[in-house]
């Protein structure tokens, strides 16, 4: 029993983190918000070079054959930096439907749960996954704006069929990837809040000395740290448990709910700690806040996922 990331994964995550730290992602997000995706796609190019989008694809199709555990470790880092574009769909869902993202970005819609294809403006390929598992090329409707200005949506309908996939497994991958990105976004918002509370003074003292501020930050840390083990377990359930699909459904949904709740709390608390400056686009908090808000129901509402868990624990022998 060893419930921790191994050294290799930690090193890989650290190298991705280091690259993104140097890449000035906030500037890329701001440009993307204004319709210029070049800087953001340059970041995608660097991530592709590091093998991020080939991580979960099997080796026969040119991927690295890594498991979802490595996937969530890296996706959390991408979330922490707010990387724009269809990260979850390219990294997690495309390989799960047998369409590894050779030419990332790739987007996938899975109506009715996830009817809108995200990143429709930049995707080199778009797929449609039907409830019966039929995978087809997606025909995209009009481009629509998301509340996250760096995210473009389009309704998707089935076009020419290209294969089939296990729809539950695909949804699990979408939900798990979303959970990882949300956890990263929550961590980023906590980190920004702590930095801000240390330097921002009111009444001649840093606001971080105030217990009310400390407790908001502590509550965020508790939610984040207690959600991460669920994220790892969800990844393990997908990676190593083909015989226990019910356990995978349950653990992935638990991760989705807990990471989503941690992000909900982080948005509220981070904005409260920042005050009015956090409500402006002059400050970077908003870039992470709106991105996290947009992902709330990207691969199912919290109610849907709680319902999946309830079904699972209602059956005898759930544990």
């Amino acid at each position, binding site marked *: 029993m*060893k419930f921790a990331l191994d050294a290799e994964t930690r090193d890989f995550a650290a190298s991705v983190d280091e690259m993104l730290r140097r890449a000035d992602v906030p500037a890329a997000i701001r440009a993307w918000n204004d319709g210029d995706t070049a800087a953001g796609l340059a970041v995608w190019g660097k991530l592709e070079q590091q093998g991020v989008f080939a991580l979960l694809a099997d080796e026969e199709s040119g991927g690295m054959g890594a498991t979802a555990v490595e996937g969530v470790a890296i996706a959390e880092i991408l979330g922490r930096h707010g990387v724009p574009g269809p990260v979850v769909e390219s990294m997690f869902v495309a390989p799960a439907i047998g369409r590894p993202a050779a030419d990332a970005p790739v987007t996938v819609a899975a109506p009715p749960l996830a009817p809108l294809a995200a990143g429709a403006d930049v995707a080199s390929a778009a797929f449609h996954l039907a409830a019966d598992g039929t995978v087809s090329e997606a025909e995209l409707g009009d481009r629509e704006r998301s509340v996250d200005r760096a995210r473009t949506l389009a309704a998707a309908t089935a076009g020419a069929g290209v294969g089939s996939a296990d729809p539950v497994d695909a949804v699990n991958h979408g939900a798990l990837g979303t959970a990882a990105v949300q956890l990263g976004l929550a961590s980023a918002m*906590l980190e920004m809040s702590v930095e801000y509370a240390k330097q921002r003074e009111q009444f001649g003292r840093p606001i*971080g*000395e105030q217990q009310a501020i400390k407790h908001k930050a*502590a509550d965020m840390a*508790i939610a984040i*740290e207690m959600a991460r083990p*669920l994220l790892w*377990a969800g990844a393990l359930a997908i990676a190593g448990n083909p015989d226990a699909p019910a356990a995978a459904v349950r653990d992935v949904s638990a991760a989705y709910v807990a990471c989503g709740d941690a992000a909900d709390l982080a948005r509220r608390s981070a904005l409260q700690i920042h005050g009015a400056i956090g409500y402006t686009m002059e400050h970077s908090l908003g870039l992470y806040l709106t991105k996290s808000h947009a992902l709330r129901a990207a691969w199912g509402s919290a109610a849907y996922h709680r319902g999946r*868990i309830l079904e699972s624990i209602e059956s005898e022998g759930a544990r």
Partner: protein
Amino acid sequence: MDLELEQSDLDFRAEVREWLEANVPAEPLPSMDTAEGFAAHRAWEARMAEDRMSVVSWPEEYGGRDCGLTRWVIFEEEYYRAGAPGRVSQNGIFLLAPTLFEHANPEQLARIMPRMARADDVWAQAWSEPESGSDLASLRSTAKRTDGGWLLSGQKTWSSRASFADMGFGLFRTDPEQSRHRGLTYFMFDLRADGVTVRPIDQLDGEPGFAELFLEDVFVPDDPSAQGNSGVIGDVDNGWKVAMSTANNERGLSLRSPGRFLATTDRLVRLWRERSGDLDARERGAAGDRVVDAWIGSRAYELSTWGTVTTLNSGGQLGSESSINKVFWSEWDIATHQTALDLLGPEGERADEKWQDGYLFALAGPIYAGTNEIQKNVIAERLLGLPRGNR
């Protein structure tokens, strides 16, 4: 990364499960906060000790099985799963014992531990004082040097089960020139010694689970063979450091082992299966969400414990993370019991309802082991690096 237990650990689980099935009393024991229940619980602990089941993580020479952390967690899971009695000796084995293993000398260990393992001595905490709760360093009890030992004086309060226990442990000021956390010493003392007055205090459930201790020149001899197992742990005037290792244990793994949460969640899920059919649609959706959230919380706690076990097994240490645990489980405990009581509806009000006792106990969670407000300050300052400032 994996969550797979080794075969030898699974064998251990099977052995513990079998032993518990054969030995756990069929009828629940009376409350350990009554004289009768205390005696019954003491007898249960002695029964466990006969088969080396009372302190499995201790070295064999003191009555344990030398189990590592992994098996200790497994033992706790099985213990709660079996619905076995609450541990009347928990303050000794979970709070004092780790401190002794870290700071006591071999002679003290040989004398004290086997008696603790058999519950020959049941230990009570003497931490809190009037006006001194989470701010432990503000305590006012003193220990003065005398011929051949020390004289303890002062007042301790809210001491769990001290009404019936044999021995107490806590901090006393040995250097009156020093203030706050300096100049304190960690003492063990006999609750039946001359000069000790124990006044029981009824808790919310009406049972004398707490007691107040009045100490008037209570003699603690230097000679270890005299007066029970009293004495000093660690160095004189260094009691704060010694005590802090105990505090982390209380907040972290030991007192609220994941086994308790898993067992409580299993009971809640069973209750949901029995009751949800009777709920109308209005109640069902909201209650179902809360049952799910309770399940998610216990799963998170279980998994985070395995993460901690991994860290500790590979040489890491438990630090301020224990404060995260403490806030989490104490809030979870209340929410879960409230959910169960809501499922029971008006019937839940009955005083003999197990959920009702559990709820009252859970209410104390955010208060003891350092209030949650104090824990959140610890998280903010030590983990996140926010400035201490004036309080």
